[in-house]
């Protein structure tokens, strides 16, 4: 993407715009608040994001929760229309530029999110989905990520519908990286918000309680591996389906060949010319059914996401363990090793 931009020069209309998502302090706090509130009830939160488009970035300035429980599309539309009208009356940006969702361990790459995101991006091309991870955040690391469907997959779905075929996946070279693209996020405060934060620091200073040098790993690893297993199982069953599908196609193909051969044999016996290509096509007007690929591509992307999460988590766990080791007891050994290393440095010829 970057290379194309470099070649074409900045500001091309056909370029996928808004390469960065900018949040203000209010949105960050609103998303956290709305997701945390529902988390205490054991539910996942979802909501709308409002904002505006700038040349290079997507600015998100307001977030509000969607309706809870079972609602019809009509109800949800009415609610968001009404909300947007009221926001405009308050002078707040009321263009819906995406949505947010809470999901733990990055397990959001599924059918539902894919279809919803497609709908948002069809309406406003720049729309993003913000994924908030309440578990990681409560461990001390704000985990908020922005994703958007890649342009290749958007084209395919526009052409083939949500059950896109294997052929188009192959042609567009869709892979786990190009399905959902992560868009970098930055948070920008206004001067006024900075003033407010300074006031808050005076009246309610941060307790500096850092829970995140926590050494326990098994809990999170266990959950991650569980999710990974689930994903791989799903992938396997999808693969099995695909194999069955291919077998069926093979059978169909051999059936057709047999039928054509029989007809040809009859014609030969009567002394008529053989079936032409067109005649054969007329006999079987319908092409072979294609197996839907959407699920398998999504699952693959999800598994890849889990793997990345595990990678990140493992890396930081290992470094934390290293640190703990250095602090505990190992100090003596390492200082002894250090002293001997210095000795060698000082007297290299011995």
């Amino acid at each position, binding site marked *: 993407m970057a290379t194309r931009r470099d070649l074409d020069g900045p500001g091309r209309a056909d370029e996928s715009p808004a390469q960065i998502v900018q949040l203000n302090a*209010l949105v960050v706090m609103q998303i956290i608040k709305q997701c945390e509130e529902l988390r205490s009830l054991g539910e996942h939160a979802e909501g709308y994001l409002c904002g505006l488009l700038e040349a290079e970035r997507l600015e998100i300035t307001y977030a509000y929760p969607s309706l809870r429980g079972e609602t019809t599309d009509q109800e949800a539309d009415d609610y968001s229309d009404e909300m947007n009208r009221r926001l405009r009356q308050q002078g707040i940006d009321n263009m819906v530029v995406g949505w947010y969702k809470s999901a733990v361990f990055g397990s959001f790459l599924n059918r539902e999110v894919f279809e919803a995101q497609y709908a948002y991006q069809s309406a406003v091309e720049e729309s993003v989905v913000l994924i908030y991870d309440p578990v990681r*955040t409560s461990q001390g690391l704000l985990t908020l990520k922005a994703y958007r469907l890649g342009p290749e997959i958007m084209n395919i779905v526009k052409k083939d519908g949500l059950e896109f075929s294997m052929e188009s996946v192959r042609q567009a070279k869709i892979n786990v990286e190009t399905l959902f693209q992560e868009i970098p996020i930055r948070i920008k405060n206004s001067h006024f918000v900075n003033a407010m934060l300074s006031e808050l620091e005076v009246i309610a200073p941060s307790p500096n309680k850092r829970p995140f040098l926590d050494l326990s790993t098994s809990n999170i690893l266990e959950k991650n591996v569980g999710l990974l297993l689930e994903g791989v199982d799903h992938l396997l069953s999808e693969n099995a389906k695909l194999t069955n599908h291919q077998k069926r196609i093979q059978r169909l193909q051999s059936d057709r060949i047999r039928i054509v051969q029989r007809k040809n044999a009859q014609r030969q016996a009567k002394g008529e010319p053989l079936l032409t290509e067109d005649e054969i096509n007329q006999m079987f007007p319908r092409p072979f059914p294609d197996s839907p690929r959407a699920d398998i591509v999504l699952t693959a992307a999800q598994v890849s996401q889990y793997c990345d999460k595990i990678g990140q988590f493992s890396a930081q766990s290992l470094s934390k363990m290293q640190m703990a080791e250095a602090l505990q007891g190992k100090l003596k050994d390492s200082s002894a090793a250090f002293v001997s290393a210095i000795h060698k440095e000082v007297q290299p010829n011995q």
Partner: protein
Amino acid sequence: MATTKINSAPQASAHAVSPMLVRLHPVAIAGICDAYERRKEKAFRVVGTLMGKFDGDVVEITNCSAVPHEEGGGQNQMPLRLDTEVAQSMIELSKRASPQETVVGWFSTRPNIPETSFYIHDFYVRYNPNIIHLTVDCTAETDRMPIKAYVWSASGVPQEPKDPKDAAARFDQGALFAQIPVEIACWDAERVGLDLISTARKDPHRVVSIPTDADQVLQTATLLDEMLDTALGYINKVLKDEIPADPEIGRALMDVIGVIPKIDEEAFEKMVNASRKDVLMVMYLSELAKAQLALQEKVNILPS
């Protein structure tokens, strides 16, 4: 704009437990600041609804929304206009999405309480007799931004209203906005978010990006290092008799030492090694899965 000129006083409700403490969540303050930044030109102040919940004599404020309004303030005699339709509608919308929140009060962005505040308060009293009034001083006339909360309390001797239909008669008894303490309340996750946002204050462009896992470990390690340095610096100074020992700090240091679990070196090593092996194994598995995926993709792309 459908504006209702406020001139009808609602029925005064019976007294219940009056709030004694306000627990204010940062998201509400951020909302008030945002509303103030979006004010109309030359607006006297911004007012709006506060949503949250009552818990005994504690009010928890978790949400807010501005209400369009006009008032002259001070000199000119522009009447107060409050867009009650927007206020009412926002309250209903908010209740549909988060039913646990009710109206708990209203806010204003000026430090003082002008006379018009009584009328606005009167509008909100319909929702709950115990609502509070929050002022966030956004005028920047001082170098602080005081946040204060008030409850409406009657005082003085009640007087028989001459005309029961007269709106102003309600105030004949004499009443005042009594200040109650405000406390900033944060859930753990909110604190994490707030801390991150606060770091943007030190950035010349007021920008901060979201840190990764590795950044976090580095930051914490640096912080830990700094804290240890501070403690060590103090201890060394005391040992050298440069500064007198403070028994309170001494006790705090003893507490810290006491918290450190005493683990046998061998057992510790065993523990760390075991969990390291776990991590490495899972890492290996996940890399294996990734390799498998990459392979599958390549096979898929191959022309059949």
